[in-house]
């Protein structure tokens, strides 16, 4: 075996180092990128394409321009979906966020033996699968056998036993919304608590020195400092409403009539019951564009913050 004289060319060494570095980076990113390319980027492009097609899974797809969007805009189901999505977002913001603020503030202001267990309990319903939440919702709100109707008839409260929580057009939305509030207020609670706990200690001490206590402290000091947190929660609620499907679908199938139809349910019906891929894709595009707008709103609002 002859020993070859190794010459160290610094340029070559550096180039080799760079190459091994690039290969390493490429290999690390490859799995993630591969997954996203197949199951996200490609379907995104395909959704946009399909939304301009007449496509039913049978036969050739045919280009029809904006026809799908026009048909959607004219359909009662889509209009109802759009309305409910925004009503849902509005009431989530009006009811769930103030409730969460009250609880989060109280739990961080009065720290005692029950604070930690209470926080864990409030978040519990959040991680239940939506199917279980729907099951418990029907357990409470079902006609005749549901807990509320049953209580009403047991105690002879006619007004209660006569209420059809899921079958009455004016009640169904609120029944489903109540279940959602029960399940999903946990997140804003733990989020606001975490943000309040990040405040500098001087906040509370200074307030105590100045004699600002209790609700004045909450209103004049804590709330203004939670502005960005509350805006983020509001955007998350809105995006969540745009995607809403599981609870109303399992509890009422969007009914009675269109009383609890959401954009998600409308998409499912068009795509997987009527097999109108084109129209369903158009709903997907609408959901995407609306959530994009609200996401951009969140980020552009964030820039104005001095943090």
């Amino acid at each position, binding site marked *: 075996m002859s020993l070859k004289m190794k010459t160290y060319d610094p340029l070559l060494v550096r180039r080799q180092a760079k190459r091994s570095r690039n290969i390493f*980076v490429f290999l*690390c*990113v490859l*799995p*993630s990128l591969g*997954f*996203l390319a197949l*199951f*996200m980027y*490609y*379907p*995104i492009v*395909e*959704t946009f394409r*399909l939304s301009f097609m007449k496509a039913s899974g049978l036969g050739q797809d045919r280009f029809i321009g904006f026809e799908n969007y026009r048909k959607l805009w004219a359909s009662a189901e889509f209009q109802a979906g759009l309305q409910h999505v925004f009503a849902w977002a509005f009431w989530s913001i009006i009811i769930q966020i103030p409730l969460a603020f009250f*609880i989060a503030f*109280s*739990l961080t202001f*009065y*720290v005692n033996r*029950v604070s930690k267990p209470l926080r*864990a309990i*409030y978040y*519990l*319903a959040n*991680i*239940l*699968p939506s*199917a*279980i939440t*729907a099951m*418990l919702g*029907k*357990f409470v709100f079902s006609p005749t*056998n*549901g807990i509320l109707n*049953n*209580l009403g008839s047991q105690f002879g409260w006619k007004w209660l036993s006569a209420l059809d929580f899921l079958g009455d057009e004016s009640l169904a939305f609120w029944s489903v919304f109540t279940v959602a509030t*029960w399940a999903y207020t*946990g*997140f804003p609670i733990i*989020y606001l608590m*975490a943000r309040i706990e990040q405040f500098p200690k001087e906040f509370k001490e200074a307030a105590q020195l100045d004699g600002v206590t*209790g609700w004045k402290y909450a209103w004049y000091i804590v709330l203004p400092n939670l502005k960005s947190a509350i805006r*983020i929660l509001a955007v998350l609620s809105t995006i969540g409403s*745009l995607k809403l499907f*599981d609870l109303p679908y*399992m509890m009422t199938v969007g009914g009675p009539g269109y009383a609890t139809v959401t954009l*998600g349910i409308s998409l*499912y019906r068009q*795509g*997987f019951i009527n097999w109108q891929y084109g129209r369903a*894709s158009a709903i*997907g*595009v609408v*959901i*995407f564009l609306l*959530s*994009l707008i609200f*996401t951009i709103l969140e980020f552009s609002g964030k820039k104005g913050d001095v943090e």
Partner: protein
Amino acid sequence: MMEKRTRTHVRHGLSEIIITCILCLFALSVLLPLFLPWLFVFKTQLEYSYSPWSLPNKIIWTNFQEAWASIRIGEGLLNTLIVSLGAVVLTVPSSALAGYVFARYHSKKTEILFYAILIGYFIPIQMVLIPLYKFNIKLGLSNSLIGLILPLAAFNIPFWTLIYRSFFQTLPKDLGDAARIDGAGHAATLFRIMLPLAAPATVLAVLLVFIAAWSDYFLSLIMLNDQRLFTMQLRVSQFLNSYGTDRMPRYAAAALISMAPTILLYVLGHKWIIRGTLAGALKE
């Protein structure tokens, strides 16, 4: 000693008591629907219809057996376990590798790739449902558990890449550099030094990806048609449709069985679950 105590724990007297009572009432209203089924589950249908609100005469387990058999819960649990573990196995390593690179290897190209993955975080699954379904048919994966696992992983990867990235950014930079100077290659540095240090992030990722996959409903509904492949959540909704609340004791039993795994997981791991959720939310 006394002084120290009053400093850390300020007493507020009456207002504290009233507010704490209100908070406890809220907590009770969270727990009530979870515990109420226990009142009905040990009764026969006859006993239930005569006196639903009394305590059961004697403890019977037939309702659990009936609920278990009606939607074949054993099969459902097994399917859901496969789906959840599959999602964890595909999501967590991919995210860890990508997150590490984005934290430690800065260049124009990696930055572009990072944003490409970040976009995925903002894509609602509804947006891509139809093509995903058609794509799965084309690949011959429709109506199979793997056809559900793959897109589930894809949808969890962006978030956890983000979390791993910010976790690796918090580790001191010298750690990796020292290893590199000692002659360790890129891969050795990652696998021997950095990944073990990222164990806390990995625990959160495994737990929360598992829960997310376990809870999935919409994607499973689209991807699975064969009843034998149904996950727990699909079986629950099947139970709602075909059995309903007509026989409350059986309904209560089905509810109690199907919520048990999640509740158990939460009781054991709620600290990490909450920490993981907040780790993501506070990063935004």
